[in-house]
């Protein structure tokens, strides 16, 4: 049974001519799948490999190098909330923020809330140090986050 949606397959195919080698489409393909499915299943790996004429092991090798991609046993919530813990944020209250978010969401870093809305994660420097402490909501920065309750409530309203 195929797991990739037809539009994802088409999108992956459309990227192949942009690169001198099909393998270069590995990361773009993994992103396309995870953005929609919130994980990359083993079946999706097999199908990406077939599209790129690679061994599934090659896709898996690249995918597992980056701690970024999730397997089907541990999918991301709708909102991946990355709390920066690197130096500039640490110096301005990142620990406090993370602790408040752990309490508010009732999950540990790396876990997803029961309603599937939030995955809480610790991140190394996300490059928004002028607004420390900062977080990423999926791939969008939120700066000067001092109020964890408000952050979560605002995201919930938008989701």
């Amino acid at each position, binding site marked *: 049974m195929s797991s990739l949606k037809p539009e994802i397959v088409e999108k992956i195919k459309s990227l192949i001519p942009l690169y*001198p080698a099909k393998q270069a489409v590995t990361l*773009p393909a993994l*992103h396309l799948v995870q953005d929609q499915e919130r994980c990359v299943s083993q079946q999706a790996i097999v199908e990406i490999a077939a599209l790129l004429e690679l061994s599934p092991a090659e896709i898996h090798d690249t995918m597992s190098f980056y701690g970024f991609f999730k397997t089907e046993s541990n999918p991301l919530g709708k909102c991946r909330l990355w709390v920066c*813990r690197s130096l500039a944020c*640490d110096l301005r209250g990142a620990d406090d923020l993370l602790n408040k978010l*752990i309490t508010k969401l009732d999950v540990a870093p790396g876990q997803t809330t029961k309603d599937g809305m939030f995955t809480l994660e610790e*991140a190394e*420097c996300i490059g928004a140090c002028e607004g420390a402490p900062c977080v990423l909501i999926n791939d969008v920065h939120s700066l000067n986050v001092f109020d964890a309750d408000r952050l979560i409530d605002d995201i919930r309203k938008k989701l």
Partner: protein
Amino acid sequence: MAKFEPVLLKRIAKDNSDHIDSYIADGGYLGLKKVLKDMAPAQVIDLVKASGLRGRGGAGFPTGLKWTFLPKDHPGPIYLCINADESEPCTFNNRVLMEKDPHQVLEGIILTSYAVGASKTFIYVRYEYGDAYRSMERAVQQAYDKGLLGKNIQGSSFSLEAVMHKGAAAYICGEETGLIESLEGKRAWPRIKPPFPAIEGAFRKPTIVNNIETVSCVKNIIDLGADWFKSIGIPPDPTNPRDAGSYGPKLYCVSGHVNRPGLVELPMGISVRELITEHGGGVWKNRKAKGVIPGGNSMGFMTEAELDTKLDFNGPGKVGCLGLGTGAVTVFDDQTSIVDVLYNICRFFAHESCGQCTPCREGTAWMFKIIDRIRKGHGRIEDLNILEEVGNQIGTMPGTTICGLADGAGWPVKNAIRKYRNEFESYIKNGDKKVRTLNLQMSHH
């Protein structure tokens, strides 16, 4: 001296600064059009060489010289990889350039491609920069629509394709051969050099890898001239035969315990003290600085007494730092424990070591374990010597690793212990060991 006017950041506060129409209204792409009509690629290379521009990504290699390492009369293709994997902790100037003035960046990319003869450019943006990625993606599309990318740009014989590529949150992709491997769809394991990318890079073809701030400087050198660029900054230090000078404007990031964290463009070579007091609003809460990280985690530490050091390519080395790095200054005040600061930095490198070279993988992990032990109150004085020993043994300088990540991991450890040894010893002997912990008492666990 006349007040310095920003050039790289000149447009960032304008409305619609990211749109091509506003960029063109401000004279954008005129430089490119002029170059395509009047200048041969070799002349562009000569101009950039004459400007003294050195790469802004951290290593400070002369940009024009790097370009000349490409094989002569190569049949192609030649690739330009743009390193927008800005991941050095406390650094964010590439993000602001891409978000707010993507066409300035893109014009620099097109000019650089023309100079080096690249027919394709891969713009590799770290995943965490979603807004910057989308801003660059829009800029690329607008440039295609206006005939500034694609076949026979502006009626010339020069053609260029631009491909946006997204990373997946790994620090090692900022190392240029790690970036190339990642682009190719593999683990981002840096390559053994030589061959350097200019000879054999992406997809085994000659490749130049340049940073976002660097190509933005190229754009302005074309518009304002090599003499303009060279009129700013610091000439070579006569006592250091290896110093090629530090010319041009520089984007300095200021973060940590200051009143006004932010990004500021200044002539290369401002002192750390002036940067903090005049542009960062001073140390917060009326405190004093205990020290700073002068250019990202990898560069080591400057103590309060060393803050008059100039932030040019040659300055930080004079006080034992690894170098200028990215020019991102992070201040920590005198109430901060040096043990906590070093713990944070060691955790970063242990997390980001790519695992390819054993000395780095094991060394960064052990340095983190040891500082963690010290921090929890179980340290021994001899741990400090062990930390220094590990720091000395990992990296390209002792010759035990393929890339410089380990040099950057060891440097802050060695610097911290040398410069703050008394504080470490006092902490080990009688520190308060008040370790912050995460609150993991969840209801359902």
